[in-house]
């Protein structure tokens, strides 16, 4: 079965700016991949190429085996743009109905009600978009992306306008989608969010893929911390496997051991290391 999303040697140049350079990335069926990187790293460009909004300068991108931008590719994806707007005079229900018609979904009113409930907008069904808060519009955007039961969801900063409750709603939603076998490419600045839900993480810097793997694969052991009556001591370079031996040695040395902690770098450490502390 082809990957839900696959890019090969994907490059994009805007004039003198190299937005993407030889990016190889894949999102498998039912996989949730987080895309990280500072502003201008090429994250949105990659997503836009995948959904057919931008043409690559070189390389290929496929969605479910179909060329990105083709009708077959567009029919199998759901997309939430970083900057999007729905007509202010449409109600939430009408927005979803419009996208049902364009996506060829036969879900009808039942699908719309289910999607609005999924993003906690079930009581705003008849509210017009221009009467909604930014967070509500963003949740409506996520519901819109889910119209027609797409095989892959491409979300560009889906939680940037959400409060903590809204973020939690989206996180639970992403976990549910994964359990249903929907693939997700999640472009976000929120490292904690990515770390919590993503199976794999890809980090872009200056248009190049500088790191990729599961959060566990990307993290490095930072040693073992022993809390004894002699104080807290960090044994650098030690791993989880060394912990029993280190405890036994401390006890043999007459120390009282109150706690032992295996330390590993967080996604934030990995990210900062990968981008060299580069910010906006």
């Amino acid at each position, binding site marked *: 079965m082809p990957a839900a999303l696959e890019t090969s040697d994907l490059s994009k140049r*805007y004039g003198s700016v190299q937005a993407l350079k030889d990016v190889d990335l894949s999102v498998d069926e039912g996989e949730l991949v987080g895309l990280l990187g500072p502003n201008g790293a090429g994250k949105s460009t990659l997503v*836009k190429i995948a*959904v*057919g*909004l*931008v*043409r690559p300068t070189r390389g290929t991108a496929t969605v479910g085996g179909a060329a990105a931008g083709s*009708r077959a590719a*567009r*029919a199998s*994806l759901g*997309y939430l*743009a970083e*900057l*999007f*707007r*729905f*007509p*202010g*005079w449409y109600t939430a229900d009408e927005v979803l109905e*419009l*996208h049902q*018609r*364009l*996506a*060829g979904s036969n879900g009808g009113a039942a699908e719309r009600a289910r999607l609005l409930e999924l993003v906690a907008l079930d009581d705003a069904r008849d509210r017009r978009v221009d009467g909604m808060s930014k967070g509500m519009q963003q949740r409506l*955007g996520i519901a*819109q992306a889910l119209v027609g039961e797409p095989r892959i969801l491409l979300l560009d900063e889906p939680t940037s306008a959400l409060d903590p409750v809204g973020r939690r709603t989206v996180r639970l939603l992403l976990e549910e989608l994964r359990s249903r076998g929907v693939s997700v490419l999640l472009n976000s600045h929120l490292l904690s969010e990515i770390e919590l839900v993503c199976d794999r993480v890809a980090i872009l810097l200056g248009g190049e893929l500088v790191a990729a793997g599961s959060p566990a694969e990307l993290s490095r052991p930072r040693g073992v911390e022993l809390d004894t009556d002699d104080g807290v001591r960090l044994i650098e370079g030690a791993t989880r496997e060394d912990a029993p031996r280190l405890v036994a040695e401390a006890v043999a040395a007459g120390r009282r051991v109150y706690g032992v902690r295996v330390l590993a770098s967080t996604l934030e450490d990995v990210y900062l290391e990968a981008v060299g502390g580069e910010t906006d």
Partner: protein
Amino acid sequence: MSSVGVIVQYALREALRRKVFAVVLLLTVVFLGLFWLATHFVHGELDTITPPSDVLVDSRTFAGAFLLGLAMFATLFLGVVLAVFLTLGVVSGDAERGLLQPLVVRPIGRSTLLLSRFLAAAGVCAAYVLAVYFAALVIVGLTLHWWPPGVVGPGAELALGVLIVIALSLLGSVGLSATANGIAVFMLFGAGLVAGLLGTIGHALNSQQIRHASTIASWALPFEGLYQDGLRLISRDATGTTSFLLQLGPFGGGYVHGWTIRAWAVAYLVLVGVAALAAFARRNL
């Protein structure tokens, strides 16, 4: 409902919400009211017009054709206003506001989306232009008791002219911001208007070069050529001094006319449409 129908409905609803129709309807009512008033006064003065005894002028035909020519120009102008405001921001404008991207990534595709927007604007503008043209025709006919020899043709040509403006506006919207596109299309319309006036001046001065320049401009902007052809159609029965006076214009001078300009206008519309589709297909959003 097909995807085309969905986008046509979307476009019409957008225009309705932005009060485009309300503004144009108000302007139209004001125009038709003033036009009726002007025609009424001309009718009152018609019997008192006494040209020199050695000059034979059919004052009714002259006044009717001249006033209807004026109404045709106003109709074209109002139709262009409507066309521009319905289409000036279809691509770049909507993309800048983030309205376009959620639609374009759907299976409908870019060409169908642009074609649907064209059909929505074309349907509204053509119906509008024909309605205003026939209203003006009826005002002239009932008030002055003069009817042009060609009734349907000039109206159809005005409608086709506005369709060309819609296509130009859609093409412009691919590369230009909404404001820049609106300015560009109105300047093109103004250039066409100047081309027509230039022809009138060239005719009055008997200058071959000025007439030639006017003809080239009218072919380059065929909505002007169609307008001139329409003027010819409403005054083709005029003869002698009446015809000469009408040709002096500004609302009777038609120097580009015939089937060639009509065929070229259709070809031009297709070419601009194809260019718009090709440009939109390559546009990064």
